[in-house]
């Protein structure tokens, strides 16, 4: 089976805006599952609510489009009740980082065998552009009209601190690297977390002087700093610019995990 066979073609084209990064990310995830060769009957996609969380609806498997923020909690039940199922979660910076934060850190702690793809577009896309806990300091949204005055989370740091077995970050531009990271996450026992920074031209870009889709793509391309390089920068006492972010793999370990099929 190829990536294309995993799509629910009768639901395409999807509802995403033109230039939205979500579609690229779904491609990468499906590429990874088809590469690994998971059985489509035994793979379940689960999500919360948001543009990003609509992803499972376009995939030809059993899927659970749940309530806002709760995908991981639902998935925990699915996985523990049937550890033979492979479970991938699609979520957003709002769904996971705001309302769903608790389920997130608890899943990391339990190291339950799930893979979470968090599409971080810095904004609540679905509801029209409110700030999220990932909206960078100073950036505009409909609920931060004067610029966000709260510091954002670093979800990867949080996942590491909470105990996840696999953590990495890429962007919707880095499709090749992302596909590899997702593959690694899927194959790691325990909880895997992949944050994907993505463009939302409709609700984020146009409010933050990234008018065109291409501006956002270039932003992702130019501001991604490789984990290894960041380490070297730190050693030299250098700091990231306010737009830069670190990409790469942050941890891969094997703390005790739950729900692993034997």
């Amino acid at each position: 089976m190829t990536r294309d066979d995993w799509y629910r073609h009768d639901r395409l084209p999807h509802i995403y805006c033109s230039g939205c990064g979500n579609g690229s990310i779904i491609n990468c995830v499906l590429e990874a599952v088809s590469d690994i060769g998971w059985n489509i009957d035994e793979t379940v996609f689960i999500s919360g609510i948001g543009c990003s969380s609509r992803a499972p609806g376009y995939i030809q498997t059993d899927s659970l489009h749940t309530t806002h923020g709760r995908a991981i909690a639902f998935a925990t039940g699915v996985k523990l009740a049937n550890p033979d199922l492979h479970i991938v979660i699609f979520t957003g910076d709002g769904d996971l980082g705001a309302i769903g934060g608790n389920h997130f850190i608890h899943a990391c702690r339990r190291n339950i065998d799930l893979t979470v793809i968090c599409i971080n577009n810095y904004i609540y896309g679905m509801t029209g552009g409110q700030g999220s806990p990932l909206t960078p300091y100073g950036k505009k949204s409909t609920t931060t009209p004067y610029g966000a005055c709260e510091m954002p989370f670093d979800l990867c740091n949080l996942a590491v601190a909470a105990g996840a077995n696999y953590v990495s970050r890429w962007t919707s531009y880095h499709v090749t690297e992302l596909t590899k990271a997702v593959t690694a996450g899927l194959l790691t026992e325990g909880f895997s977390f992949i944050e994907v920074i993505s463009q939302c031209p409709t609700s984020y870009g146009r409010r933050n002087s990234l008018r065109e889709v291409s501006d956002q793509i270039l932003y992702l391309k130019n501001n991604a700093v490789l984990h290894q390089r960041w380490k070297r920068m730190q050693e030299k006492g250098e700091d990231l610019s306010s737009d830069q972010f670190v990409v790469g793999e942050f941890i891969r370990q094997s703390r005790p995990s739950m729900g692993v099929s034997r």
Partner: protein
Amino acid sequence: MRHEVRFSGFGGQGIILSAVILGRAAVLYDNKNAVQTQVYGPEARGGASMSAVIIDDEDILFPKVINPNIFVIMSQEGFLKYGAGAPGNAVMLLDSGLVHDRPSCRYYEIPASREAKDRLGKIIVANIVMLGSLVAATGIITKEALEAGILSSVPKGTEDLNIRAMKLGFDLIMEGKGEP
């Protein structure tokens, strides 16, 4: 007399804004009553967006459009979804470059997007061109009210452009360009 105006097009064309401007102009500058409503929903994103305005001299009780008699259509999908069923006695203004089909009611072909691009250099104000044509063609509100409505609704710095777009809309009707 109750007028029910329906706007449709695709996301990004400013369909909703057009309706709001029309309603606001009617209420604030023409002392009429108006109710503006619209279709929300993710489906509106890729597909056709729709907004409606009811204008009446009396109080508007039932606030939803029942029998729209004026249509402003700016995309083919919008036409199919919201314009194709227009009754015989309706009037339709359509962006002739974007709508391929034609209704069975009276209609005006307004090359709004093309003219906006060609004459004003900004396709983004095509909706205001359509508004101008609408008012010129139907007289549903006064031109002065429309102008005031536009001025109080558009972002600072774009007033001039928008007023020129409105006037372009007036002209397209006056020049008889839109006549069916």
